[in-house]
């Protein structure tokens, strides 16, 4: 698993800065924006913050929930839903957003390179 070894992790914020069932955005050094979500069951997910349907960097401000048990976020612009674990859009099978790995270490949320 050489890929794992090369992955770099960036500390973003304390765990309690991401409320349950909500999301926040983080700005990476390369200018990329990551939407970090925390589900009701304390799973953390990272998606590109860019909403592919509007071009606005706002996915972190969508409402987090589930569709048939699958954790999703609904874009705040036009309400399309994206699966948190894969970035796949549930409302348009041709669309998905980039995912970012997220891990918790020492009570701090880290985002990894994709």
């Amino acid at each position, binding site marked *: 698993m050489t890929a794992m070894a090369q992955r770099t992790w960036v500390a973003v*914020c304390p765990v309690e*800065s991401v409320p349950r069932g909500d999301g926040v955005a983080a*700005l990476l050094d390369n200018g990329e924006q990551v939407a970090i979500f925390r589900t009701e069951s304390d799973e953390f997910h990272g998606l590109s913050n860019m909403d*592919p349907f509007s071009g606005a960097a706002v996915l972190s*401000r969508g*409402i987090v929930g589930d569709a*048939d048990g699958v954790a999703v976020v609904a874009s705040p*612009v036009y309400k399309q839903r994206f699966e948190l674990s894969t970035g796949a859009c549930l409302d348009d099978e*041709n*669309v998905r957003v980039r995912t970012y790995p997220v891990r918790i270490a020492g009570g701090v949320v880290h985002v990894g390179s994709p």
Partner: protein
Amino acid sequence: MSRTLVVAGHGMVAHRLVEAIRSEDAEGTWRIVVFGEERRPAYDRVGLTSYVDGWDAGALALPGADYSGDEAVELRLGDPVTGVDREARRVVTAGGHSERYDALVLATGSRPFVPPVPGHDLPGCFVYRTIEDLDAIHAAVERARGGRGRPAAAVVGGGLLGLEAAKALRDMGLSPHVVEMAPRLMPLQVDEGGGALLRRLVTALGVTVHTGTSTDAIEADRGKLCAKLGNGTELDVDLVVFSAGVRPRDDLARQCGLEVAERGGVLVDSSCRTSDPHVYAIGECAAIEGRVYGLVAPGYTMAEVAAARLLGRDATFPGADTSTKLKLMGVDVASFGDAHAATEGALEVVFNDAVNGSYKKLVVSDDSATLLGGVLVGDAGDYNLLRPLVGNPLPADPATILAPAGGGGAVGIEALPEEAQICSCNAVTKGAITWAITDEGCDSVPAVKACTRAGTSCGSCVPMLGRLLSACGVEQSKALCEHFTVSRAELFEIVRATRISTFSELIARHGKGSGCAICKPAVASILATLGNGHILNGEQAALQDTNDHYLANLQRNGTYSVVPRIPGGEITPDKLIVIGEVAREFGLYAKITGGQRIDLFGATVEQLPRIWRRLVDAGFESGHAYGKALRTVKSCVGSTWCRYGVQDSVGLAIELELRYRGLRSPHKLKSAVSGCARECAEARGKDFGVIATDNGWNLYVGGNGGTMPRHADLLVSDVDTETLIRIIDRFLMFYVRTADRLQRTAPWIEELDGGLGHLREVIVEDSLGICAELEAAMARHVEEYADEWKGVLEDPEKLARFTSFVNAPGVPDPTISFRTEREQPVPVLLPVPEVVGR
């Protein structure tokens, strides 16, 4: 070379005739000349009583009745035909006009019958047929208001028309007396038992009923009138309205020697032709095969028959169904088929529930197998099911059918034959609706309505559409979303009753899963309405849609717009300057909204608290433009400045806006107040709109703009400010509690079983006894209101949310940029990224 059709009269039936011909006669083989006696085009005379609601004759207008733009039709109003020369085929009019015809249609209607009582022509005596009659009655009522004591009125005639007149007088604030010669009210439609209940129900509404007595004389008495009844009673009144039936206007026919029926009416055969093949008669002036009908539906049928004949097609009058169902002053009355058991051997089965005010009678054949007719008073809910069954075998024992629901199986919709008409307004049969459900795939009431037009006029059959869907096995889900099987209204009641104050507890106990973008904001709104503190408190924040989350409106580039409240659109120069300064300092785009306030666009999330610090310091508060909540109460300048204003519309608009600000609701709420009937504030395009009158305010509800523009309907008229506010309190709270998610007030009212009439019963007449509670809930809202933006500025935890990046507070989103257009900043839109295939 076109032929000339002359139509004498321009009422509803004449208009239907012209419409029917014009819709088929594209080549214009008929040139049509219509002579009307009234000075206005045909209008909805059946709905005449509703004229009292707003004194707006325009509301009674029939679409297309002035034929503007149709060169084949010449409409001459205020110029009745006064003579017919059948030999020369020519009519002459009161105005001296002469017109030759190839065909003549008499559609002169009826005149009110005034019994030859001494004094019947005194000033203060009226009839009830035209808009002008109602205007004259209105003027007399207003004059009497200026005199001593409360104005009083007597209505002579206790039939359908008499009760309509009584309703009109009651709507004008009077408690009328109704005098009927027969031993009961509506003697033609209902039987003795039904009449007794009808009398009780109508009496309870402030109408005094005198039956079984004649009106012997009307005498003038010191500026008032005294109606002397045959039973010795003397009624001191200001006005007397005669509504004792109508008589066909057959004078023209008599004058030119056409045959008339023994009891009046131009005699016509089943093709509507008179004894002269060039002359037809239709509507209430015609005695078709010897029978005169005083209803509009048979008149319409005659118009269609005559039109077909004139266009060279074969058509005959099939006879008419004189069944009636109406709501008089909120009392249901229906009569259908052989209501008086005139058929030989007919049997009657009666169910009379004096406690609940319901009387039902079925008339059945001597073997009790076939339904012949019936009478329903108090609760005519079964009319739609029973009327189509007339002449058909009964699906069950008559007593079982009449038993109240729950007592064991009232007649099911399955029992109706396919050809039974469910929607009589648009002539839609059960078969057509079933086909729409099973073959066209309509799976909801709105889908059935759109596909078949059933239920799109009066709406009384809408509950039947739901039952037909169920009967076809279509389950109509009222579930809010996949996480809650209950509707929004039910969820509201659950939250209200259990006082659950968090989403997690609610979904754990009454739903499943973790929620979604539908149920989370809906629950957030319910929690906010029920007073659970600031909408960003604790767990509530994660439920909010982004607009509520940032208390601003998300725009397409990820920035937000800011709308401070400007109640009633009134603003001081100092405050206006502050808005300008804020826009300049933060580089915002400024635009005046349709709701008489100012929208500032292009704020990033980190700018929002700083912008609001300035605004709150200057005395502004949240305008809730971001919420499903009260937006604005727009106003015209009103009596303070305007030469025509009759009330202080700005003052009332501010009072209403401050009262209902912050009220979370199923959808946005808009309002307006106009200071006079010119309606400059466009109040009838609002969810609740108020229009000033000389005596107070008229309240209209259920209006909106948008994709389905709709004018609001009059709910109450001429009320004082205190009453007005009390009724708006009830209206809004009832809406907030019972509407579906994202349902504006117009579709909400439309979907109420009973529509506007039901709404009026609940919130004006308090038929459910919930008004005190609705008012108390609104009082709590008013008391607990606090400015949401002030709440954010005072709380560091909430302020901390206003940042684009959790790891870089204060850094704005680098993808946002602006360019200048017409001297203001506008967003530079990023290209939408190439979609990524799976």
